[in-house]
């Protein structure tokens, strides 16, 4: 399992990275943590001629609180998502998901930006970013732009990133006092890709739900919001009947593809169970 030969460039500035990628075109790949990229090279599933290392770009580092948002630099490592106080305080849903992402040594290298850009539908962070209504900041040769998470995940491993563009930061709305989060996944073994996973963030008005965003992963080609289930919740307390109502409509939101490990009906069943458990958790702590 040895990769095909390539050249390596350690970019010193974003401009250098973008320019090098543009020149090489289809034959270049950015490498950040590399935890997902390197195995594909070892297996010769891809064979770029140029790897552009972006891990030394200072502009992609750092976590800052801005007025209404937490700006999380794309190079933030998963272990930092787990450990940084700003994330615990202002983006607890990310903090809750982090321990489930692979294993400690992977988390020491993998980056949030890398995870979002890869958009593996079975991964935790893309779905959480969707649940959080985050914005993804992107740099390209034509400048910097932001895309809402709802618009970012297009298809299987396909995002709003144009070829040669870089995710530079994730902007997450600050967590508020009247909000609650819940996260869980069902995986055969700790750190495995989940059979089904879910994260949610609910805004309360007293004991009643004001708004809620629920995102599933490992249920399709993209991280998926359960919009129909979400829609039956605002204005209600999370009692057993209301939770059952949300579970009942979930099949309108999810159409899991067939897979070797789990038939679609099973995945849907698990998603329903998970939805019920997480809503129950939020309801109890409300």
């Amino acid at each position, binding site marked *: 399992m040895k990769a095909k030969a390539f050249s390596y460039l350690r970019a010193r500035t974003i401009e250098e990275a973008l320019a090098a990628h543009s020149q090489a075109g289809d034959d270049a790949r950015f490498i950040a943590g590399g935890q997902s990229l390197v195995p594909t090279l*070892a297996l010769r599933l891809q064979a770029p001629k140029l790897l552009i290392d972006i891990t030394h770009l200072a502009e992609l580092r750092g976590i800052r609180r801005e007025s209404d948002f937490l700006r999380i630099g794309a190079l933030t490592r998963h272990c930092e998502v787990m450990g940084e106080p700003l994330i615990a305080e202002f983006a607890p849903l990310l903090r809750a998901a982090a321990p489930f992402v692979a294993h400690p*040594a992977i988390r020491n*290298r993998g980056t949030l930006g890398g995870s979002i850009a890869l958009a593996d539908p079975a991964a935790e962070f893309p779905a959480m970013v969707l649940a959080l209504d985050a914005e993804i900041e992107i740099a390209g040769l034509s400048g910097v732009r932001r895309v809402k998470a709802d618009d970012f995940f297009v298809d299987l491993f396909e995002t709003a990133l144009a070829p040669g563009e870089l995710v530079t930061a994730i902007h997450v709305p600050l967590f508020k006092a009247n909000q609650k989060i819940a996260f869980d996944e069902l995986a055969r073994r700790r750190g495995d890709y989940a059979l089904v996973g879910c994260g949610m963030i609910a805004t309360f008005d007293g004991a009643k739900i004001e708004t809620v965003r629920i995102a599933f992963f490992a249920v399709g080609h993209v991280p998926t919001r359960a919009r129909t289930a979400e829609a039956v919740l605002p204005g209600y307390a999370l009692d057993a009947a209301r939770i059952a109502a949300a579970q009942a409509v979930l099949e309108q939101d999810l159409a899991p593809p067939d897979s070797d490990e789990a038939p679609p009906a099973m995945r849907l069943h698990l998603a329903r169970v998970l939805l019920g458990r997480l809503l129950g958790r939020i309801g109890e702590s409300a």
Partner: protein
Amino acid sequence: MSEIDTSFDPGDADEVVRVRFVLNGCKTSCAVAPRDTLLDCLRNSLELTGTHAGCEMGACAACLVLLDGRAVHSCLMFAVQADGARIETIEGLSESGAIADLQAEFHRRNALQCGFCTPGMLINAHELLSQNAAPSRAEIRDALSGNYCRCTGYEAIVDAVAAAAARRAGGKTKDHAS
């Protein structure tokens, strides 16, 4: 007919570059191809074979080293990415005595059999104890959840890590009963 990539000529593959890092406390430089993983560089070029290759895709943790103080899969990095870094392998950690108590507990409890997973286990355990001085058994299992062992069934390893943690905290532990 199986397909041949007619555009690919391995004749011009493998330009060699020089990487420099501090390896087990020593300034080291090494000629590598960009496609050489850090694992292959350590094992083949630098002949430090204590770090092992179990899967070459980050699924077994036999290849863990410390990079700038953090445990990483050396099979998931190219050596060129490590240029300028500080690297510690099992050999260095062993010779410096940094993991001597962990090694002693592993030895006392036979927390290894074939030994192939052991360097990775020790490095991960070392990192765990540096972050969590009194981990529960469940926390130990969680921290080691990515380290594959086929021989021990893990329990003796958990015992050894827990015992090392307890000793560091000043307590005594019950030795494995004869």
